[in-house]
Every structure is written in C-alpha cells, then in structure tokens.
C-alpha cells in the first residue's frame, strides 16, 4: 500500500498521457470511419494537454515548473481542437452527402 502513500510524481502523468496518445494514434490508424479518426485526434490532443498540465503544475514539478504557460497553451489547444472538430464534422457531413458513406477507404475518389 505504499504506492498510495507517496505523492504523485511527474512520470505518473507522463505515463497516463503516453497511454492516451498511443490509444489515439491506434484509433486514428485502425478506424475506417471518419468520425473514429476524429475521436483518435481528440485522444491525442488530450494526451498532449495532460502533459502540458503536468509540466505546468507546481504541485507536481516543484519549482522547475512551466508555470502559467502550460495552462494557457492547453487552453489554446482546447479551443483549436473544438474548431478542428467543427470543421472536420462539416467536411464529414459534406462527404456523406455526396458519397453516402463516411468510410475513409472510399476517400480516394476525392483526388483531382
């Protein structure tokens, strides 16, 4: 039970964000649905955000912290992710209207 008695270090957060990042990359590569790829992107951005928060937190890093910059950059990442999701969903809806599917394997008809 000594694992529950000592405070959480930086590497705990880095491990969690690494798992989230790898799950997002795996989701982006294995899903054949456009929306599944989009969910993978959200997971990747969340892993990166968690790294920013861990490096910016004085409770974890002590004095050698990123400070408020980590939170501000994470705020920008959240806003950019929301904008990216809106545009990607609009493109997916448009693609569905013209192709009646959201399968990314059929996207090779879009070239040219």
């Amino acid at each position, binding site marked *: 039970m000594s694992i529950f008695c000592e405070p959480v270090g930086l590497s705990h957060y880095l491990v969690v964000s690494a798992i989230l990042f790898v799950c997002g990359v795996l989701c982006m590569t294995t899903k054949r649905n456009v929306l599944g790829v989009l969910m993978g992107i959200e997971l990747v951005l969340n892993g990166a955000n968690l790294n920013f*928060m861990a490096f910016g937190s*004085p*409770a974890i890093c002590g004095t050698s912290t990123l400070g408020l910059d980590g*939170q501000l950059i994470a705020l920008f990442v959240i806003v950019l992710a929301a904008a990216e999701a809106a545009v990607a969903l*609009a493109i997916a809806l448009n693609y569905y209207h*013209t192709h009646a599917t959201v399968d990314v394997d059929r996207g090779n008809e879009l070239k040219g």
Partner: protein
Amino acid sequence: MGPINWQTCFFFLMAAIACGAAIAVVISSNIVRMACWLVLSLAAVAGLFFLTGAEFLGAVQLMVYVGGTMVLLIFGVMLTARGPFVSMKIGAAQWVVAVIAAGALLTVLLQAAFGTFGQTQGKPIAAAGSSRELAASGNDVADAASYSPLGLGLIGVRIDRLAERDHVLRGGMSGYLLPFEIISVHLVVVLVGAAYLARARRRMVPRHWRGGEQPSGVED
C-alpha cells in the same frame, strides 16, 4: 507506512478510468459506443486536470470537450450512420501491424517519461516561472485560484512573473494578447466556414447508387 495520500488515490482512480476508456475506444467497433467511451475518457482527463491544480482548465475541459465537442460528435454520428449499428471491422493483419507500431511508440514514450522522472527528482532546475505561493506549496495542490492569472495572462499581463529577473519579460511582454486575438478571429472564421460547409443543400445521387434502384427521398 504513512497516512494514505488521497490525491494519489484519486489520481490512480482517474488515470485508470481515462486509460481504460481510451483502450475501450480503440477496441470497440461500434461508433456510438466509441463516442460514449470517449466521453468517459475526456471526463476522467478533466478530473486529472483538477488534480494538477488547474481547476479552470478542468472546467473548460468539461464544458468545451464533454459538453460541446461530444454533442457535435454524437450528432455527426447520428447524421452519418446509415443503419442502427455501424460497425467497422478491420482485418487481423492490420491489427497486428497497428499493435506493433503502437507498442514501439509506447515504449519510446515510456522511456522518455521515466527519463524525465529521474532528472527532476535529482536536480530541480532554477525557477522558470514560479510565483511566491507556487514555489512554497511543495507537494500540495496549489491553493491559489488559477483563473485570474489566466485571464490577466490572456490580456497581456503576467502577474505570475512579477519576480522575473529579465526586465523585458517583467513588463508584461510575455503575455498572450496576440495569440488570444488570433485564436478568437480563427474561431469565428472556422465556425462560419463550418456552417457554410455543412449547410443544407439538395442531396445529390451518390456514384455507387447509380445503376441500381434509387432509394426513396432522393430527388434531383
């Protein structure tokens, strides 16, 4: 054995929920279930944000991601699903390649994670951006509210860097006013563009429907 650190307990709870839900997103093949697991994962990440002492970012994560983006995603799922159960199966060979690639990436990232752990435990670098109470707070969650420094940082005044030795940085020059303006204009442009792209128009006949019978509800 000392007293139980409840912050550590909640960290392990939230981390288990976040990682388990993320893995469930990967291995589930139903798109609606993927969306539900993603909601759970994002909410657990918001809990981790609260544990790092960034309560404003945790609230933003809950509102923007779990509230906004997931509603958008679920509406996208509903608007683009043709049957009640849209499943996307991929072959076993693709799974093998994907798992090998993901394992290699995870190995590299975990090595980096434990490398930085040894470094920061050994010798802490000189304080880069720490205010007084942040430097003093040690292992506890910082009790200072983070939203007024965040808001002042967004309008260009960094009150957390008042003790900065650099005279140029001390004068509020390192604020985020210009990125804030850029990102607000970006958000407006992107949302107008998304509304333009997703506007209702007359539905065209898809290419692979031609030749066969046309489904009902399609007119041209």
